[in-house]
């Protein structure tokens, strides 16, 4: 007990904040434009004939509950570091050109975009595999947490989503 010196709500920035000027990763509250992202992936890029995108959106029927909104929390610094690692792993495993990963944070509503992964490659299989790999690893490695706001019989409640073992199983298939 004596070793626990202070206990407080977080107010300051984490002491260790990895700086990522990496243009491949963006953690943001704002919405994004699929068209703009693909335009950037393709701009002055005449060697990559294949572009694969994944977009994840807030559904209205997660686990049968009537979800009205989601709040996305993340661990600043670690999020960027873990995504950078995942992207580097993908680049080692497949011949890919450009990559972009966007993940939104904060309050999101039904139909809102949550996550975008875009990958270009000379070869379509590499673009497909790398994109799916990045999503699978993001799901189990990147420190994001979703809290659902649910309306059930006129009553509003909140709860943190449970992680799915199916996500862990799917990520394990790559290794």
């Amino acid at each position, binding site marked *: 007990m004596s070793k626990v010196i202070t206990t407080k709500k977080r107010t300051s920035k984490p002491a260790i904040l990895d700086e990522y000027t990496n243009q491949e990763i963006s953690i943001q509250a704002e919405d994004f434009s699929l068209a703009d992202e693909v335009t950037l992936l393709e701009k002055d890029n005449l060697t990559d004939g294949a572009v694969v995108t994944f977009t994840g959106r807030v559904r209205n029927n997660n686990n049968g509950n009537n979800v009205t909104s989601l709040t996305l*929390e993340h661990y600043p*610094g670690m999020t960027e570091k873990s995504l950078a690692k995942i992207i580097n792993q993908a680049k080692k495993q497949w011949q890919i050109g450009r990559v972009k990963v966007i993940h939104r944070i904060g309050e999101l509503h039904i139909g809102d975009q949550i996550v975008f992964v875009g990958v270009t490659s000379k070869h379509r299989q590499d673009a497909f595999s790398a994109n799916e790999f990045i*999503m699978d690893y993001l799901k189990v490695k990147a420190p994001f*947490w*979703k809290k659902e706001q649910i309306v059930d019989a006129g009553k509003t409640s909140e709860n943190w989503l449970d992680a799915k073992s199916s996500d862990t199983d799917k990520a394990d298939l790559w290794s």
Partner: protein
Amino acid sequence: MIKIVFFAALREQLDCAELSLSADKAKTVNDIKLLLSDKSAQWQQIFSNASLLAAVNHDMVAGDHLVKSGDEVAFFPPVTGG
């Protein structure tokens, strides 16, 4: 000093986002868990949850990972992004 941070459901259960620990009595992440468990019966129960994840300086680590003064140690539930 070691900085300890908590996220998501764990932060809410503990009603605590961040605290500091002197580095001299904790050699590993598991040592930190034991020290935190000493705080109360509730904390003990929470930190006995085997599914809790830990990160040191923004890298996911196992319980036997060594810690030192200046480290940032994070505990959080399994992630649910994407």
